């Protein structure tokens, strides 16, 4: 364990130093992530006002709260691993990583956590600014805020593992971008990024709840908005734990099979 902590500390220093070299691009990249929920927020606010102040129980200030929370949660659980893996295989850096006595997932964990820490101040500032501009209605209770922390961490872990596993498709096919595109479209709809899930038709809501999508984004947001009872919250956390175990098993099996293919065809 101490060995791993040492590795994480060194990797953190390296990632931090590398990221700081690309401050401008991180900033530009973040603007995209901020702009998207702001657009949804603006559109839905207009829609709710034109419908006499509310759509499906969401008033303009509820939409504001929803999309500000969504921006936070999405940013804090986002990974870019799917884009990167194909490149690693093609360019050969994965081979170098395989020769080290350490699973390559560790450096990705550190990379992702570090990027979140770096962008935290900017993210907090943006959330504050949007709060002042759009006057959102958060109904926060202390227990919900306390439950939000493990919910967010679990959501990040599950999303990270799922996306890391999907990235491994690069072992089997060179057309990973098609798989990515499919995943992101489904994620956009079923995770509540475009609109609150409760506004969706029943079957879609069900699909979102059966699949991991609701839990990795919408669930922490709903919690932050005070829309869940303590029982629903506990159930959600339990479901996330279940997905965590499933994602971990899926990742390990896929990784083993993928590396076998990789080392058969020419690493």
């Amino acid at each position, binding site marked *: 364990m101490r060995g791993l902590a040492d590795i994480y500390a060194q990797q953190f220093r*390296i990632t931090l130093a590398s990221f700081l070299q690309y401050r401008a691009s991180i900033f530009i990249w973040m603007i995209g992530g901020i702009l998207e929920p702001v657009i949804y927020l603006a559109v839905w606010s207009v829609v709710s006002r034109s419908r006499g102040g509310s759509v499906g129980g969401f008033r303009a200030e509820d939409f504001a709260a929803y999309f500000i929370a969504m921006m936070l949660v999405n940013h804090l659980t986002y990974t870019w691993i799917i884009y990167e893996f194909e490149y690693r295989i093609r360019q050969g850096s994965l081979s170098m990583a395989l*020769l*080290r006595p*350490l699973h390559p997932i560790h450096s990705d964990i550190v990379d992702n956590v570090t990027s979140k820490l770096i962008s935290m101040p900017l993210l907090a500032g943006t959330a504050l600014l949007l709060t002042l501009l759009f006057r959102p209605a958060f109904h926060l209770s202390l227990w919900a805020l306390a439950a939000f922390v493990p919910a967010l961490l679990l959501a990040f872990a599950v999303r990270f593992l799922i996306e890391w596993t999907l990235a491994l498709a690069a072992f089997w096919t060179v057309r990973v971008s098609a798989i990515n595109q499919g995943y992101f479209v489904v994620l956009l709809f079923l995770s509540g990024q475009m609109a609150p899930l409760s506004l969706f038709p029943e079957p879609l809501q069900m699909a979102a709840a059966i699949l991991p999508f609701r839990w990795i984004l919408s669930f922490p947001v709903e919690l932050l908005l005070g829309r869940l009872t303590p029982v629903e919250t506990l159930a959600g956390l339990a479901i996330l734990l279940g997905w965590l175990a499933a994602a971990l098993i899926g990742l390990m099996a896929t990784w083993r099979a993928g590396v*076998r293919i990789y080392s058969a*065809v020419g690493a």
Partner: protein
Amino acid sequence: MGSGRSELGMSPVIRIRDLCKTYVVTEREPGVGAALRSLLHRRTRETPAVERVSFALAPGEVVGFIGPNGAGKTTTLKMLSGLLHPTSGEVSVLGYVPWKREKAFLRQITLLMGQRNQLVWDIPAADSFELNRAIYRIPAADFRRTVDELTDLLELGPLLRKPVRNLSLGERMKCEVAAALLHRPQVVFLDEPTIGLDVTMQRRIRAFLAEYNRRCGATILLTSHYMADVEALCRRVIVIHRGQLLFDGDLSDLVRRFTAHKTIVVQLGESHLDLRGYGEVVSALDGAVTLRVPKAETARVTGRLLAELPVIDLTVEDPPIEEVIERVFAQEIP
């Protein structure tokens, strides 16, 4: 931990027997029609990259592994380091089966590829070294000693503090070599370690590798297109061509076996003599004539030259190693 780890002192560190690697590649003709057809029916072809290769390396040996592009050198190195799964045959390195990539195995080897890098581009090499220290669990004192030693031998001093992207190719390669050896691997696989470097830098890396081998007793298997690397470092060479082992033995034996000719350089007192009657004239400049003669004829031709011409100086040489190798690959000589 180790799978059947050998404890015998001088038993081979690396042993491969009947090693084969066959790649399955998909093929298709150019054009849209062929692209559509390939969606329905993929045509594959088996390409043997390594065929029934066997050899063994004793502890501390430095062996040159040579062959033209596509001969199967890198494929073999990848099987030895655990990146590739052999199609058939046996591989054992330090008593481990490489492709299982056990941590205890990975901690004792390194594969350095001249065309690939492990150092992080945007930060100083010293930081990447620290990461390697953590990953390979090198005790702090050992680490510091090794870094000092490598810094000294490779003259890394100021380079370690500069971002890697600001280093020249040669400087970067020196740092890559150091990074690959920080954990003092017992087995070192080098794939074209001097590629693209200038002569001085090549020489420095060579001298360093020889010194590393002397100090650490590491076993080194090295591929290079620069025969100077091989000549300087390896007494023994393994030659591979089209996936098959052509030769395994002393470099001098290789030269003996694969050269049917010797080179005779004569310095003459007069400069306008025609020597075509003695052998093939390779060059003639200011009375210095280089002749190429069949090996069996060497003694007779030398005798005739000395008896019949005003010879000031005469030397008999083997042809340059590059030429020998070229002939081996061209299969000119059986």
